[in-house]
């Protein structure tokens, strides 16, 4: 579990590439042992931050601390961090064992010891027996695990992971998410994890930083970020942003401004005149579309008050045929007041 010591500290970190400001002044503390996710759209500066921490890019301004020591000006091989690259960057001319041993080899760890530690690392990622394969002979998931073993064997203070699951297919990706999380718990190393997949960030991490255009918009636990987004951008990026705005807001909420309710907070009640409870609000509308998605069904509802909301409903009891029949029906969407939040 996350400790309270600081593993990574960024202060006023900036990076400019010519006219482009890739990272625009970032302050961040990642605690020892934390599984920390950096979430944001493409081009928001996540990779650049990671590369500065690893030492591949010198910052334009600001400092980087690892375990309390300023490493801003150290070379990559002088920093006690390791990186799992998005494309894994396995050495194609070495077999799996040689790849995993690499970090120990260049640090002149005696042969017997490095062999032993490499084999242990391979066991920890469940790749015992694959020692003599070449990277080209592995599947995507296996490669990812070799890349992981290659870093773990060095027992770094911090592990940086740049979208390590980005190239995998969905099924494998879900399996790897579970494995990665378990591995992190087991080794206790701080993981700093880059992703643009909100669900991945929410399910795996202890805390999340949401990036936009080189800045951090919000840092918090997954629940904080999802349920109390600090900005409109966070609301939209982390989850479906169901907006109630303009005339609809006036009519339904009695206030002007823009508000949002998460789809899963909306109950779909057949018939337009169902009643709402005391702390609840509701809106009548027509079901424009019903999308069956296996575990859940999505209802796209055109509100009488204007605008469109999406409601998510777990397929707990209803059979699929029943829900599909709702297309075109009049319904009322009901939600608790505490689940509305204003968008700024």
């Amino acid at each position, binding site marked *: 579990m996350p400790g309270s010591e600081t593993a990574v500290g960024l202060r006023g970190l900036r990076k400019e590439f010519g006219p482009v400001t890739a990272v625009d002044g970032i302050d961040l503390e990642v605690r020892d042992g934390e599984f920390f996710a950096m979430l944001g759209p493409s081009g928001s500066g996540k990779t650049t931050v990671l590369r500065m921490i*690893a030492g591949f890019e010198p910052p334009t301004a600001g400092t980087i601390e690892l375990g309390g020591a300023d490493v801003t000006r150290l*070379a*990559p*091989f002088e920093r006690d961090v390791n990186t799992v690259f998005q494309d894994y*960057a396995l*050495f194609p001319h070495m077999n799996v064992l040689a790849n995993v041993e690499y*970090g120990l*080899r260049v*640090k002149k760890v005696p042969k017997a010891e490095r062999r032993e530690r490499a084999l242990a690392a391979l066991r920890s990622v469940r790749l015992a027996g694959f020692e003599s394969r070449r990277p080209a002979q592995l599947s995507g998931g296996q490669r990812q695990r070799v890349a992981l073993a290659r870093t773990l064997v060095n027992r770094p203070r911090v592990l940086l992971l740049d979208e390590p699951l980005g190239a995998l297919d969905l099924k494998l990706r879900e399996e790897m998410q579970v494995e990665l999380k378990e591995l992190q718990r087991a080794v206790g190393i701080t993981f700093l994890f880059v992703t643009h997949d909100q669900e991945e960030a929410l399910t795996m991490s202890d805390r999340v930083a949401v990036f936009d255009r080189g800045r951090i918009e919000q840092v918090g636990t997954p629940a904080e970020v999802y349920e109390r987004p600090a900005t409109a951008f966070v609301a939209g990026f982390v989850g479906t942003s169901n907006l109630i705005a303009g005339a609809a807001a006036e009519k339904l909420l009695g206030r002007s401004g823009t508000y949002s309710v998460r789809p899963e907070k909306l109950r779909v009640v057949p018939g337009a005149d169902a009643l709402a409870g005391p702390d609840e609000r509701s809106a009548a509308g027509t079901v424009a579309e019903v999308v069956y998605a296996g575990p859940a069904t999505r209802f796209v509802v055109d509100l009488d008050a204007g605008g469109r909301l999406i409601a998510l409903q777990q397929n707990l009891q209803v059979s699929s045929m029943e829900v599909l029949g709702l297309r075109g029906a009049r319904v009322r969407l009901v939600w608790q007041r505490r689940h509305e939040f204003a968008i700024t």
Partner: protein
Amino acid sequence: MSRAGAFLHRRAGVRLALLLSAPLAWLGLAYLGALAALLVTAFHSVDTFTGTLNRTFTWANFLDLATGEVYRTIVLRSVGVALAVTAIDLVVAFPMAFAMAKLAGPRTRRWLVIAVLTPLWASYLVKAYAWRVMLSSGGLLGWGFGLTATVLTLAYLWLPYMILPIYAGLERLPGSLLEAAGDLGARSWQVFRTVVWPLTFPAVIAGSIFTFSLSLGDYIAVKIVGGRSQLIGNVVYDNIGAAGDLPFAAAVATVPVVVMLGYLAAVRRTGALESL
């Protein structure tokens, strides 16, 4: 047209045959045939005065070649020169290609490629003479002529042929591999030794095929800056001219052929022929 297209689509074999026909007729039949005919000539003899070929089989040329100590010296010297040229070019070209491929921005890179290509257009002879001028006593360098001068001049002449393949090889080398090595704790020279060199080795070999073979066959540069030296190419050239002793010239010419075939065979395993 479209019926021919549909026919070709269904017949991969016909497609392949059409594609291979001309290149193989040219290189496989004509060129290899010419080489084979030359090899056959090496087993003939010639009336050196009238120049008429005597087509009776004889080992005489190869015997002369094998027993003449001078030929062994010259072959060893020529191979030594070719190796030295290749080594110098490698040492000069690698860092240059590396800086071009991995340090320069894309725009600068384009200009650097041009800069490296430009000397190809200045005549070989003129460049060799420029070296003669620089090496002569009182010249810019004034180091004098001889084998060293020959090696330097040839290394200069073939340098672009070494830079270009290595540059191409380095350009293909993903930057992330170098970063990964550094990230895992390797210092610059360790990155070079464990990652860069093994992965660009085929490109180096490709470049070395140029520098090695061009040096092995040269007989002109050595005449210009070689002082008293001669190389295997001079022997071939002198003999084919001298009384038109084609058979003996052909026999001598088999030496660089054998050396190169041995080199190519050794190199094939590195996969370099695939990435030439």
